[in-house]
């Protein structure tokens, strides 16, 4: 489980955009524009096309997301089972950090 979280960290500067993309695709397949709007609504961050497709390229290479047939030049992507596992592992790791952080803040 720890390894999966590390896998996401291996994406370097794309690790955070990649996490946001995985979260965005967790409920349903989306194309680039829909992902950008969803990520902006969820996190307040607007991913530019360079960052978005830099992360998509790497996620697709690792088999964590899968392309679906093109619909009017817009290609939707969906989360693969491996991508779901990686996302779950990363969220669990983050939950542990949040729990510790909250506990320590409460102690102050």
């Amino acid at each position, binding site marked *: 489980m720890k390894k999966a979280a590390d896998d996401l960290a291996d994406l370097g500067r794309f690790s955070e955009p990649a996490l946001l993309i995985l979260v965005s695709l967790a409920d349903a397949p989306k*194309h*680039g*524009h829909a992902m*950008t709007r969803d990520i902006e609504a969820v996190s307040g961050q607007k991913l*530019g*096309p*360079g*960052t*978005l*497709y*830099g992360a*998509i*390229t790497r996620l697709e290479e690792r088999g964590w997301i899968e392309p679906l047939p*093109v619909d*009017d*030049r*817009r*290609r939707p992507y969906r989360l693969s089972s491996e991508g779901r596992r990686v996302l779950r592992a990363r969220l669990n790791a983050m939950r542990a950090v949040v729990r510790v952080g909250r506990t320590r803040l409460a102690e102050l």
Partner: protein
Amino acid sequence: MTVRAIALAIVRRYPKPWRDRYEGEVSALIEDSDVRVRDLGELVRGLVTERTRELLSDDVRPKRTAAVLNWMPAIFIALLTAAAAGAGLMLRVLANPLPPVAGVTVLALVNLTGVVVYTLLVLRGRRNPQARQWPAWLTAVVVSSWFGLTVLIAWGGISNLFSSDLQGWARMLQCWVWAVLLMEMATKIVPGRQMLQALTDLNYAEEQIQMNEAWVRSCHEWIAKGVPSPLAQAESQVERYARERDDARERLARLSYRARFRGREAT
């Protein structure tokens, strides 16, 4: 030209395999959304990254990567010189040309720096032969001196650079010395120097293997005809270069070069 048009133009500069796969959807995204100026920077950064990735995963032969790495020092120096010349010309337009006295003083300082650097380098080499030949401080000195020298020339503080008198020749000579120093430094500090060396070794080893395999084949032919031939020597040469090739591949793998080498013994 709008920001959107510039963004689309940048996307068209991405490597072809990437464009074949993503250009349509990225273009659609750019057309659908509000593209900001900062997105252009991001696209340029992506362009550099994808071009580098393409270079490092060339699946044909590593010669193109070696050629690009080989040209990097010259490109770096050309860009640095152009930037310095631009700065000098701008100063010339905005302010008066640099007075000759000031120019000569700065020039003397630059050359004095060169002498001090060279002396320190020689002393350092004698004290510790294993020391890194081009430490970071030396790089900073050489780069800034070359930059300063070029600015001065463009600004007009050093006039008659190309005159035929003795001073003109002396100026040309010192420019040449600094350019050689800069080139030497650039070849030492350029990113990918180790990769370039490994690629060169790999290409050389592969060429040698081909040559020596041909020698082995001809030895077999001669032996079949009853003529004595140095087969063992030819085979040992093939083995030797095969070891060098494998060593170069191993070094390349450590440096994250992911080429899928073609050939009979492709890895």
